Structure formats: C-alpha cells, structure tokens
C-alpha cells in the first residue's frame, strides 16, 4: 500500500509537474489566507493582514524550490529539468552548439569507424565457433608447409592440434550448364569443415572419409552468398551437377551464412576437395614434396591446454624431422603460427589499425581540448550570470550540474551523428570490392559493439571537456565579479586554455605530418621503378584449360594469339608471361637455384631462391623491362634447344659477383638442369612494393608450357579502343575463349591497395586535424580580440599603429601556434617511424614534407586569425568607449 502510494506520487511528480506546481501554488495561497483570517480576527484590516501574512510566509519561490528538492531527489525529474535548461541555453547560441556538435560528430565518427575496422579485422576475423583457438601457418614465408606431402606428415605427426586442415585458392570456370563464368573457390583437405566445427546450412559437407586418392571426390560445397546470387536460394541445388573447368562435380551442400572461408578478407564462391585439384589444373602437385604452391595455409584448433609456444615448438620439431628425412625436397625454416584469418598480413594489419586507433584517439583528444577551451571561454563570458545565480542562492553543485548536462547533451548529439555516419560508412566499406580482379572485401560490417563504443566515447569526451571550466566555477566569487564586471581577471600568465590550445595544435601538426608523409610515400610508390612500365600496357588474361585447350594445342593457340595481337595497328610490342606477371595477385613462384659446382642438390645448399617467370620472346620489350646486357629470348629457345635464362641484376651480383661476370655462366635448377645465363635485366618489384631488391630469373615460356598466362600488349592507343580491337581479333580465333582484358595499372591496384588505404585514412585524419586546429585557433583569437576590444580601442585612440594593434591582439595565439607546431612536428617525425611500416618509402625527413608541414601550419594560422585580425583592425575607439 505504502509502496503503491509512493509509486503513484512519484509518477505524479514525474509526469504531472505542471499540476503539482499549480497545487503547490494554491496550497500556499490557502495558507496565507488562513493566516490573514487570523490576523483580521486580531484586529488588522484585510489588506494589511494579507500583506503581513505574505511577509511572514517568506520567500515563496525558495519554498517551492525546496519542495521540488524534497520531491526531486527524484533523479529523472531533476535530470529532465536540467536537460530543459541546458537545451534553452544551447538554443541561445546556435553557432557554438552547431560547431561543437559537428566537431564531436567528426571526432567520434572517426573513432567509431576505426573501431569498426579493428572489430571486424582483428577482434572477430573468422565467423566460426571457438575462433580464438584456431591457429595456423602463415602464407608467404615458405617454411615448407606449402607442399601437400609435408602437410600430411604434419597432420599425422603433430601432437598439438585437434585435427589439421589445409586449403588453397582456385579460380576455375564454373558452369551450371548454360552460363560458364569465372569463379573463386578453395581446394581443401577432406577434414576442412570438421576441423572448423561448422555445420552445413543445407545438404551435407564432405569429410576425410570421402577422399580415396586423386580425383576421387568430385564434390563442391557452395558458400551461402554464392548460393544466393547464382542459384537464387534454390534448395534443389543439392545433388545437382556443375562443371569446373569442364569436369563434372556434384553439389553436396551449402555452407552457413557468414562463413566465407578461412581468410577473412577473401569472399569465395565454393569449396572442393584438394585431392581433385588435378581436374582443375590439368595436372597435380599433390605428390611433390618440394612444391611451394599446393597448399596456401594449414590450420587447426589447439588442443585444450596446449600453449602457442608448445604448438610452435611441436611444428618446428616435425619440420626438423622432415628436413632430415627428405633433404632433397625440404629445407625447414622456423615456422611462426598465427591466428587464422589474416594470414601473413596479420602483423601489418594490426600495426596499421593500431596506428589508426592512435591517430583517431588523438583527433578525439584534440576535439575535447578544443571544446574544453570553448567551454572555458563561455564559462568566463557567463561569469556574471553564474555570479548572479550564486548570489541569488543557487548552489555551485547545481550550476556545475547544468554545465555537465550541457556538455553531455552536446557530446551525445555529436556521438549520435558521428555514429550514424560511421555505420553508413562501414556498411559501404564492407560491400566494397577494392580490387576488381580479386574476390577480396573488408570484413568490417558494423555490429552492436560499435554502438556501445560510440556511446562510451561520447560520455567520456563530454565529461572530459566539461571538467575544464569546473575550477573556474568553483573559484568564482560572486561579489567580486558583479562588482568588477567580466573583465576583472585579465591574466598574462599561461592559462589552462593556452595549454589546451598548444596540445591541440601539436596533435594537429602530428596528423598533418603523418598525412603528408603518407601522400609522399604513395606518390613515390606510384612513380617508383617496378622493373617494368605499367603505363601504355594492356594485360590479356586467358585460361586455355578453361576453354578446353591442353598440351601442344595450347602452345599453338598461344602463338596464334601472339601473332594476332601483333597485327593490331598501333601495337608496338607483344609478349606473354606464364601464370602471373610480377606484382599481380598470386605471382610468387620461386625456384631453388644452385651454383654450377654444387652436386649435392639438397635444400640446405641452395644458392638463392629467386622469383621465377616463364616468358615468351618479346616480353621484355612489351613489359618495358630494360636489358642491361646480353639478349632476350628467341622463338628457337624451345624444348629442343639448350636451357637458357635471363636473370636480374640482383641475381647476377648475388650468384656471380657482377653483371659482367654472369654472362655465359651456368647455374642449376632443383632437378639438376644446367641453365646458361644469356642476358641480365634491371631489378624490379615482384611480390610487394616495399620489398628489398630480390633475385629473379626468367626462363623461356616455350620450354615449360602452361595453360594460364598473361599477354602484355604495349601500345600508345586509347585503352578502350585497344581492348575492343583485341577482343575482335580474339573472336576471330575462338569465339568461346574466356578472356579478361585490363590495363596493367588496374592489376597493380592489389599491391597499391595498402598504401592507398593508408594514404586515404591518414589524409582524412590529417584534414580533420587541420579543421580542428583552425577552429581552435580561430576560437582563441576571436575570443582574445573580443575580450580586449576596449583595451585595443584605447590603444588605437592613443595612436597605436596597425602593426602594434595586431601584435597586441594576435601575438599570443600566434605564439601558441608556433610552440604547438614545433612540438607537433617533432612528434610527427618520431611517428614517421611507425608510418614506415604501412606506407612505402615513408620518411618524414623529407624536406618536402617538413616544408609542407610548416607551410600548412602557417596557412592554418593565417586562415584562422584572418577574421579576428580584421575585427581588431576595424576597431573604432569612439563607438567602443561610448558603449561602456
């Protein structure tokens, strides 16, 4: 009963505030009338009695306020009141409110986006059960686990994993009977899905028991996305036959939605058993222990209780055993294990995202510093109002509560706007396919966590900048301020606001430095020397196996295509490279090479492991690779003639000592073939832009045929016209040929992607930093001019020159700007070392970058102080002095 009454009363207190107010009013009136009645009875006349009664009652407003307080330990009611008041205050200065909300929206938005990337790329890289115990080898460092026999040994001999699975990528033609097209998939070990502990969405998965040797398991499992886009969610696909590179495969089932393979940024179409890879490639490397192209990565769940260190030691022990047993084919390198999902990019991605988080955090800090000083400035402008309220009996606690409410309203509004923007941006990012040729996307779709983080950031930053003026309010002495007016304290010493401004400018200078470093790095990597010339070159990619050509047929077809391209008007050079050209996705074939005197061809005795390309005559001319000495290949460098090679400068120096000494010398391949060096070409980039000079060898394509190749067509013609001409020539040869024609630059987008992303991200953050410092300096300068208008007016009246006025008005903000910029520049140079991890050739000790930063900061200062300076110069002392 009591509870109910109390509850009813509270509800009434909350919702019927106006009613309660009226009732209070009436009750007080009734009280005063009763008192007046008594006073009349004691002999006063009515008017006098009522006056006395009112006086005796005392402050009615104070009484009502106290009643409210008695009710209003009612938290929500008090809060609503505070909010209403804060909204009124903020509405009175829409410019300030807008600027503050916008600043925070940008800062919180940037942080939310960066968190979304962190969350998507690092916190939850794979959408599978117990992903945290899923560890595997890293692609790219060639520790020997790229061969299938080695994988089998590791699977059976290790004692650390609960089952070990292997997979690789495959890009066959996918034909449902009417519309053949390119596709992307995984070849996987039979136990792949069981190791991952996932269940099919539809139908069934294949298992280890389905494998009975090469080409024994012609099954595919579709990803949910591919089932949706290609088969329109048709549940009848299970059991249907499809053709991969013309070989029949049975659809077994569909993988659960959200699972798209075990590399987090690759979104493939299907999975198939690796034992059937021979059907796709027209030949298999399953039994080659020395192969480094069969398996992409090997992974599994660590057994309960096994630590990463133990597992790594275990894997390395198996490696050492295999090296001893198979010295010809296996040279063990220490194997790092990493969380499955980001492969070899894990370290780089983590460093990049950590860097971004740091910079975004700095942005938020700068925004808080900015708003903190704005709030402090407002608080001192409002010091009269505060003093008046204190004098009228308001408590400091109440005033501070108002201040915090204002700050939190602004930060929550900013947070909400920022969050909406960042969620939209992340949605766009997660569906964006940055590299046209590869099925790669950023797994950054936003989830619930991001809302929480944005809320947290908003509240924390609100509290952070509301703290700045607290001391000012606590120290405010109402009598002093009311007496002296707001200009009472015009200190010359360094205030909190000055420090905040310096911090903010320093942060901004760091951001500007970083983004300039990144932009310079990108510019250099775009115009760097790749060892070939991507401009004016078209790439024609054909998979002849997909079209049914093989062996000699394929070689003949290649030659016909080569000749046909050469007849197109305007085409200067044509050549081809088997499999992939340098710097293209998947171009990392390496071969073991021995010195000619080495007889024991065990892996430990290799002289080098250069990149290896099989190229046609004319390739160097078409690619724009310059020949330093010797010759390129000729059409008679074919199967019947002695083995010859062209090597790059790095290889020549490493193996033979110099370019001149390399000519005519021999080296040996893994199978013992002696190869004679007939030419040396310049160094280039082969796998990534920031690699050190790497050895490379070029062998005649005619001596090792392959069904997939890229044909390079060099011409000054417009790329679209050229592509059309190439297509029509190809149609004359074979209308059913599946070809892709792109510019070489497009293909390079893969290797340029990381620097481009870094540059874009740093550029945006740098812009935001610049904007923040403009508003910061502007705020400071405008404020200092407006506070000192009277003083400046007197100076003008006493004959001060323009220069002196400007110095008086803006000297201080500009001095702070200089201090801040210098600090920021120093920090930025330091931060450049971090940037070098991400951005190719990033060095802040670049005169252009240094000059750019100084210039940028000067410009920012000029822009930000322009309006306040104009105002200071246009002071009319007469008007000003009359006003006061």
């Amino acid at each position, binding site marked *: 009963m009591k509870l109910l*009454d109390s509850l009813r*009363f509270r509800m009434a207190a909350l919702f019927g505030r106006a009613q309660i107010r009226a009732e209070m009013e009436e009750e007080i009136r009734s*009280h005063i009338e*009763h008192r007046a009645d008594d006073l009349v009875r004691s002999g006063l006349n009515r008017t006098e009695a009522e006056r006395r009664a009112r006086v005796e009652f005392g402050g*009615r407003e104070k*009484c009502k306020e106290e009643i409210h307080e*008695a009710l209003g330990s009612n938290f929500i009611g008090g809060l609503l009141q505070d909010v209403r008041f804060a909204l009124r205050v903020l509405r009175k200065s829409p410019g300030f409110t807008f600027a503050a909300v916008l600043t925070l929206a940008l800062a919180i938005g940037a942080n939310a986006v960066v968190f979304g990337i962190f969350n998507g790329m690092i916190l939850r890289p794979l959408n599978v059960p117990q992903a945290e115990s899923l560890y595997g080898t890293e692609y790219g460092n060639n520790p020997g686990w790229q061969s299938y026999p080695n994988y089998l040994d590791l699977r059976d001999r290790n004692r650390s994993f609960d089952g070990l699975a292997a997979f690789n990528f495959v890009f066959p033609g996918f034909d449902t009977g009417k519309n053949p097209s390119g596709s992307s998939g995984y070849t996987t070990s039979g136990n792949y899905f069981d190791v991952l502990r996932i269940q099919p969405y539809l139908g069934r998965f294949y298992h280890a028991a389905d494998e009975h040797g090469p080409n024994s398991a012609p099954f595919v499992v579709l990803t949910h996305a591919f089932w949706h886009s290609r088969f329109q969610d048709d549940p009848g696909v299970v059991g249907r036959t499809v053709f991969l590179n013309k070989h029949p495969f049975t659809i077994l089932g569909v993988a659960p939605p959200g699972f798209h393979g075990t590399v987090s940024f690759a979104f493939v179409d299907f999975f198939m058993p690796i034992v059937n890879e021979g059907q796709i490639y027209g030949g298999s490397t399953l039994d080659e222990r020395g192969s480094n192209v069969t398996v992409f990565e090997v992974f599994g769940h660590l057994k309960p209780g096994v630590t990463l260190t133990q597992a790594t030691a275990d894997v390395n022990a198996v490696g050492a055993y295999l090296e001893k047993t198979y010295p010809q084919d296996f040279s063990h390198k220490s194997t790092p294990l990493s969380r499955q999902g980001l492969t070899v990019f894990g370290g780089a991605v983590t460093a990049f995202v950590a860097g971004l988080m740091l910079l975004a955090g700095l942005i938020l800090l700068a925004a808080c510093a900015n708003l903190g000083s704005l709030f402090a400035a407002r608080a001192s402008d409002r010091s009269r109002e505060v003093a008046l309220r204190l004098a009228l009996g308001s408590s400091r606690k109440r005033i501070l509560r108002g201040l915090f409410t204002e700050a939190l309203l602004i930060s929550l509004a900013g947070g909400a706007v920022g969050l909406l923007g960042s969620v939209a941006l992340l949605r766009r990012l997660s569906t964006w396919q940055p590299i046209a040729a590869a099925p790669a996307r950023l797994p950054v779709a936003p989830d619930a966590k991001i809302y929480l983080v944005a809320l947290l950031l908003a509240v924390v930053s609100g509290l952070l900048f509301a703290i700045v003026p607290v001391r000012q309010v606590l120290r405010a002495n109402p009598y002093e301020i009311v007496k002296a007016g707001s200009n009472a304290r015009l200190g010359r010493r360094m205030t909190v606001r000055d420090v905040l401004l310096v911090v903010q400018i320093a942060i901004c200078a760091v951001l500007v430095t970083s983004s300039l470093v990144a932009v310079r790095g990108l510019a250099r990597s775009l115009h760097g020397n790749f060892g070939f010339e991507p401009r004016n070159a078209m790439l024609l990619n054909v998979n002849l196996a997909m079209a049914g050509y093989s062996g000699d047929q394929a070689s003949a077809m290649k030659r016909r295509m080569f000749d046909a391209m050469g007849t197109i008007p305007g085409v200067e050079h044509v050549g081809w490279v088997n499999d992939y050209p340098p710097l293209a996705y998947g171009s990392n074939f390496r071969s073991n090479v021995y010195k000619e005197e080495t007889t024991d061809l065990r892996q430990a005795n290799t002289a080098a492991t250069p990149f290896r390309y099989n190229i046609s005559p004319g390739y160097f001319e078409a690619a724009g690779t310059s020949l330093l000495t010797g010759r390129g290949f000729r059409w008679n460098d074919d199967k019947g003639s002695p083995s010859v090679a062209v090597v790059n400068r790095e290889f020549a120096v490493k193996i033979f000592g110099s370019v001149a000494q390399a000519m005519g010398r021999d080296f040996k391949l893994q199978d013992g073939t002696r190869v004679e060096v007939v030419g040396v070409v310049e160094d280039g980039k082969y796998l990534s832009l920031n690699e050190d000079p790497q050895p490379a060898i070029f062998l005649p394509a005619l001596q090792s045929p392959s069904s997939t190749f890229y044909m390079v067509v060099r011409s000054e013609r417009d790329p679209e016209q050229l592509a059309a001409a190439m297509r029509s020539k190809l149609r004359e040869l074979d209308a059913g040929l599946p070809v892709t024609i792109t510019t070489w630059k497009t293909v390079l987008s893969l290797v340029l992607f990381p620097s481009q992303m870094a540059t874009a991200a740093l550029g945006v953050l740098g812009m935001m930093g610049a904007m923040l410092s403009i508003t910061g300096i502007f705020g400071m300068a405008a404020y200092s001019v407006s506070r000192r208008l009277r003083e400046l007016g007197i100076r003008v009246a006493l004959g001060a020159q323009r220069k002196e006025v400007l110095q008086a008005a803006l000297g201080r903000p500009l001095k702070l700007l200089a201090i801040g910029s210098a600090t920021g520049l120093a920090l930025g140079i330091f931060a450049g070392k971090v940037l070098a991890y991400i951005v190719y050739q990033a060095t802040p000790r670049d005169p252009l970058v240094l000059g750019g930063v100084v210039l940028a900061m000067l410009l920012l200062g000029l822009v930000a102080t322009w309006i306040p300076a104009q105002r200071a110069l246009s002071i009319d002392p007469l008007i000003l002095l009359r006003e006061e």
Partner: protein
Amino acid sequence: MNDQAQLLPGTLDLLILRAVSLGPLHGYGILLRIGQISDNALLIEQGALYPGLFRLLRQGLLKASWGTSENNRRAKFYELTAAGRKRLREETESWNRLVSAMASALSQQPEEI
C-alpha cells in the same frame, strides 16, 4: 527570543506526524497545532513546513485531499496513513529512549561515575 527551542534536525517530520495523528489538518492548521501542543515553545517557520509535508507525502506516511476548512476556504487536508501511524509509534519510542538516555547522562553527578 530564546524561550523558543531550536528544532533539532529530523524533528520536524516527527512533529508533523504527531500533529496530524490527532485528526486531519491543513498546512496552516498543522502549524497552529504544533504551537498548541508544544505550548508555543516550538515555532516552525511557515515556509519550512511545506517541503516537510511533501517529503512525508512522497514517503507514503501522509495522504492528502482537498476539502473546505473551518474558515470556509479551500484547503488541502493531511492525515496519517497506516505506515505513517507505524512510523510515528517507532519514532516516538526511539525519541523517548534518546531523551531519557540524554537526561540520565546529563544528570549524573561526578562522584557517581
């Protein structure tokens, strides 16, 4: 001036409960009643009464309804709820205990310690 006792913190609520326990009263009536039952020794500032009344209402110790006073004016009458009655009993007991304890403590003579 000093024949009126200073109110101890917390005693206002008890006085209001006591005043109202003798029958429903409006605010001004409560003031008069407190003066009457304390022989005008305890005088409460008129404005200070109402926050106390609202506090007790909120705690569910009092309930209020509008009615007509002896002066034929509209007024809000307060009366005890069951919880209020219980609280009055408890507070009175604990107050009495405190008073007798204080009285005993203050009346001790030095040689008796």
